[in-house]
């Protein structure tokens, strides 16, 4: 059969199949959702002691991300406080599929809990369910997995608070006026997208009527790409007054570009960054203010939450409480979320007090 004829036959086949009706999105979404696989039947015993010798694994978005390294190392340190054992493994790129084989490996290695910063909330779902079927507890941190696929989500800050405060921070520096852009991580990054949703909502308020969001750019949490995206924003929008980059990779790449360009002092940059990454740009006045939570506390809290789950102190239901070492008692909120606290603003006056 010639290729031409082969193609024609395949096309006919496709049309033939198209003629009959089949499984569509609406027929799937209207079907009742499967019952959650979680062990919600189990009862929480808040007074149960933390089990000794727990084996935990942190699976960050990518292992070469300095922010994630800080979070994970703090979690690994925390595990030592309760005589547990923790490690960090992960892919070298932050693509959706690269975490899958790691989840499978960790499942095989028989860990008590897997802590994951999901690259794609849905792509990791199947393997996480398989891990849970083997009795492994799943704690998402930093970036959530779909709620039905994990036991807990340790949220660095309330998403609403992060989103709105970023807009307020920028508005205060540009006098509530002018074109602004957002430089995000990947287009599907769960946390960034939630924050951006609240940023847009905040921008809808009357006091920001003179501020216009002209573009959401994606640097894919890749330093070089974020750098060129910033460059592109400057060229495409000459009237740009401000950029919010709610990702540590994005803000430092953007700052590096702006500090060496003619836009320094003209375009205001803010977002979420670590003090060590941003120190030189605050000192050279490229950036006046930026925000972040304490990533060490995030890893620490996630580590304790996982230990509490495995030990049966909590099951992940709303209203349960557990003790998170030096951070004190924490309560589980809606949809199994535990919130770390409000974001903290760094500026030239306080940045030298922090080293991470």
């Amino acid at each position, binding site marked *: 059969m010639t290729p031409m004829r082969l193609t024609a036959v395949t096309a006919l086949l496709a049309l033939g199949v*198209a003629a009959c009706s089949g499984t569509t999105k609406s027929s*799937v979404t209207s079907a009742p959702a499967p019952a959650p696989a979680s062990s919600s039947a189990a009862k929480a015993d808040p007074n149960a002691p933390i089990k000794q010798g727990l084996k935990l694994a942190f699976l960050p978005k990518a292992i070469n991300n300095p922010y994630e390294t800080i979070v994970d190392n703090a979690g690994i340190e925390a595990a030592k406080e309760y005589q547990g054992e923790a490690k960090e*493994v992960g892919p070298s790129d932050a693509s959706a599929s690269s975490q899958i084989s790691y989840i499978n*490996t960790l499942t095989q*290695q028989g860990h008590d809990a897997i802590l994951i910063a999901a690259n794609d909330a*849905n792509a990791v779902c199947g393997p996480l369910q398989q891990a849970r079927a083997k009795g492994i507890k799943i704690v998402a941190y930093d970036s959530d997995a779909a709620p039905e696929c994990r036991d807990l989500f340790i949220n660095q800050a309330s998403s609403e608070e992060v989103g709105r405060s970023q807009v307020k921070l920028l508005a205060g520096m540009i006098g509530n006026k002018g074109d602004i852009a957002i430089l995000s991580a990947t287009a599907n990054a769960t946390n960034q997208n939630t924050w951006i949703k609240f940023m847009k909502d905040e921008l809808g308020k009357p006091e920001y009527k003179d501020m216009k969001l002209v573009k959401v750019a994606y640097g894919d949490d890749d330093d070089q790409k974020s750098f060129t995206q910033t460059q592109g924003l400057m060229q495409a929008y000459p009237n740009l007054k401000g950029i919010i980059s709610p990702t540590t990779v994005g803000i430092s790449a953007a700052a590096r570009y702006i500090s060496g360009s003619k836009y320094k002092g003209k375009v205001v940059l803010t977002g979420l960054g670590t003090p060590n990454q941003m120190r030189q740009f605050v000192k050279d006045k490229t950036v006046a203010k930026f925000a972040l939570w304490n990533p060490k506390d995030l890893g620490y809290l996630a580590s304790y939450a996982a230990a509490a789950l495995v030990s049966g102190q909590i099951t992940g239901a709303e209203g349960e409480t557990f003790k998170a070492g030096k951070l004190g008692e924490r309560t589980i909120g809606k949809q199994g979320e535990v919130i770390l606290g409000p974001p903290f603003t760094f500026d030239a006056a306080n940045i030298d007090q922090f080293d991470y």
Partner: protein
Amino acid sequence: MARVLRWDVLVGALLIAVFAAGSLTSPSFATVDNLSFALGDLGEIALIALAMTMLVVAAEVDLSVASVLGLSSALVGSLWDAGMAIETIIPLAVLTGAVCGLVNGLLVTRLGLPSLAVTIGTLALYRGLAYVVLGDRAIAQFPPDYAALALNDVPGTPIPYPIALFVLLAAIVGVVLHATGFGRALYAIGAQEQAAFFAGIRVKRVKLLLFVISGTVAGFAGVVFTLRYGSARADNGVGIELAVIAAVLLGGVDFDGGKGTLGGVIAGVLLIGLLRNLLMLGDVSTEIQSIVTGLLLIVSVLTPRLVSLVRPALKGSP
């Protein structure tokens, strides 16, 4: 003696060695679950490697396969989101792959361009189209019945469905490549294109067909990838073409064409997959994993050349 020293036999031996080392060093390696996972992870790479083997044997290459996979995935996501039935979407995505392959094949055979250059171009082109189709979105919530086909094992066996399909296709490709005139024609084209032409082989038509097959398989792999991960994205499968070509080369197929066996390629695919799995179970960092795979690839390309250099020298000595 020469038979025993064939590279594909060595790769097979290496595969057995890795398997033995894994079973001895890691309690979780030689378990049914783990091997099933490891095989499942190889699904798309293994499928595409079948088509790639035939291309490389005929001294051509298709670097655009991962982008075709991405385009197919983006199309699946976009059409599914628009409310089309998955039964219609799947053939359309496969057909798109075939068209992508046809374009590659026409550029190579009608315009006489080198396939390396053409498919580097379409690598960028098809990936770009994938972004045009789906943009930066990620589409999820595919029908569980179909996702199960991409993710689950054939009931009663540890073999995931895509791998079962691979076994079936591999048997077909193996017969075609090693036991038919068409297979012989591919080796002839790869070894000496002009001689093949004068021997009556319709070289251009054969090559065009190979590219269409390659695109079709990559399009289908895009469907498998999308359903397996439950997430359709334009950037799905970035870089997979390198894993496929690595497996084909590791399996002893000569990049200059005309040499190599499908058995070697299958051993190559399994070797890369199992080695990676074993290194991960041993908590070896991603960087070291890349280094090990890279070194293995260089050795695989280097060894046959060294052997062919050393052998005449040995014969020459008294």
